């Protein structure tokens, strides 16, 4: 009898944890996305099943061109971010003195918490025609007159790199910090040069951090709205803008849902391929 009452108590506590979590995940994650899928198949009147919303995507070049462009640029930005982050993480974990390490970590993390909007705004002040950089370059005589440095693809990519970079550096620092220095010493002692140590030891060891950083950066860039809108040019269309336009401007929720679902599909597929290629496990990478 005593045993029984004890197991019942444990079940109770299980349901106390389980119910709120299950409600959260089903009501706010699962069902809304199913609803997104359902609405994407509805006709313009909100009635009947149709594929028109998806058809429109493939027949209208501006839609799928923006889609492909967004995907390719997101991959490109992720790669740039990776190339910048690896040496930064390496310097902080393996080269800087132990004392400087803590300070550098704080310096890295503080901008991490400042709102994306403010950081983008800072770049706008720096880059635009009347911006700080232009004033400076004209003053030292490098430019004859101010040039618009903002509102083009380069400034947009730079902005995306800037706003997402820390989400790569932090997970890489996490794994790199646990890389035992003696592995690098051993490789060096066994005759490996710098490049071989990177290729054979550091990169393979840091792969989980690289993958989780890449996934998060890729997702942030792909789903970014502010940075392309504020730093990109008139032609720097980003797919999230198309979604926003459909939902808010044209009030065409069915078309917007179809676009949203396509973006979700694209991001899941790219992540899945990346994980398969590097032989990593999603739930392990995210931890």
């Amino acid at each position, binding site marked *: 009898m005593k045993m029984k009452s004890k197991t019942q108590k444990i079940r109770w506590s299980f349901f106390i944890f389980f119910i709120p979590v299950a409600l959260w995940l089903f009501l706010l994650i699962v069902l809304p996305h199913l609803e997104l899928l359902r609405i994407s198949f509805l006709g313009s009147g909100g009635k009947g099943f149709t594929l028109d919303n998806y058809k429109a995507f493939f027949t209208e070049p501006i839609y799928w061109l923006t889609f492909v462009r967004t995907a390719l640029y997101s991959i490109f930005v992720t790669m740039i971010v990776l190339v910048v982050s690896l*040496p930064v993480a390496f310097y902080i974990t393996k080269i800087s003195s132990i004392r400087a390490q803590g300070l550098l970590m704080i310096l890295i993390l503080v901008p991490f918490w400042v709102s994306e909007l403010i950081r983008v705004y800072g770049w706008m002040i720096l880059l635009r025609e009347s911006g700080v950089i232009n004033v400076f370059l004209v003053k030292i005589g490098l430019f004859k007159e101010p040039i618009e440095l903002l509102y083009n693809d380069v400034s947009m990519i730079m902005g995306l790199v800037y706003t997402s970079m820390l989400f790569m550096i932090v997970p890489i620092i996490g794994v790199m910090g646990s890389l035992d220095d003696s592995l690098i010493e051993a490789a060096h002692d066994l005759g490996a040069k710098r490049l071989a140590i990177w290729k054979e030891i550091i990169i393979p060891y840091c792969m989980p951090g690289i993958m989780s950083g890449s996934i998060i950066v890729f997702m942030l860039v792909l789903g970014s709205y502010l940075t392309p809108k504020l730093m990109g040019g008139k032609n720097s269309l980003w797919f999230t803008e198309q979604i926003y336009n459909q939902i808010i401007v044209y009030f065409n929720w069915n078309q917007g849902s179809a676009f949203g679902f396509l973006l979700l599909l694209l991001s899941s597929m790219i992540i899945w391929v990346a994980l398969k290629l590097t032989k990593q496990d999603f739930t392990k990478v995210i931890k």
Partner: protein
Amino acid sequence: MIRTLPNSKGYLTGFRLFILIFFLFLFAPLIVTMVLAFNDSMFPSLPWKGFTLDWFLGEGPDKIGIFHDKSNIRGIVTSFKVAISVSILSTIVGTMAAFLFEQEDFKFKGLLYFLMIAPLVIPGVILGISILLFTNSIGIFLEDNFGIYLKFLTPSFGLVVIGQFSFITTIVTMVISARLRKFDRTLEEAAYNLGANKFEVIWFITLKYLRPSIIGGAAIAFLMSFENFNTTLFLVGAKSTLPINLYQQVRDGSTPVINAISFILIISTSILAVANLYMGNKKEK
């Protein structure tokens, strides 16, 4: 190569230069934004026209400082309310989720865990739209069939809280899980052995141990909520949060009052972030 190996001077100098440029890149926009908050000019740009506190204290009519800028103050207040609600809700549910995934075993745990981390890879824009569509559908259904009208199911304060809660809880869960994973479960067994029941064990032993990560998780939730833009964009009603409000001003051009707001936000988030890090480090030991 690393600090314990002999390094050539050139290698170290080159690396240090790279890091210097990196940090310049990281901080230049923040510093410029902050400095221009004190420029006595109508535009957030150079040339420098002298030092002023007008963008903080000015009462108008030309220069309205942040402390007299009604619309932005309203935005800040709304954001604060949202952030506090979200951090309380997501900390409670996140703690429960951490217990559920770290200490309980049940069927379909893997599937549920997968759902729990899914918000990390769902773009915020899509999450916002999905929740907007779903709550809208429920609202219509309830109104059509039962004649009930629920305000929080249309874009409003409540919906913003729901939308942000849906993904911030994931982050909080992960922060708390990370610490719970390191918890020595023999401590619980010892407490049982000394006569405590399950709830007493959780309250006196486990939650005490988790406290630093619960505080840290709540702080992270607060900051993420306060600055959230993508999800909020689709859910916001008549009362804008600060980021939505600022976005319109940044897009359409504005006076350096934005710099003043940025200055306050950068300084206060830095203090909160450093305090959080410092506390985290101290508690770890």
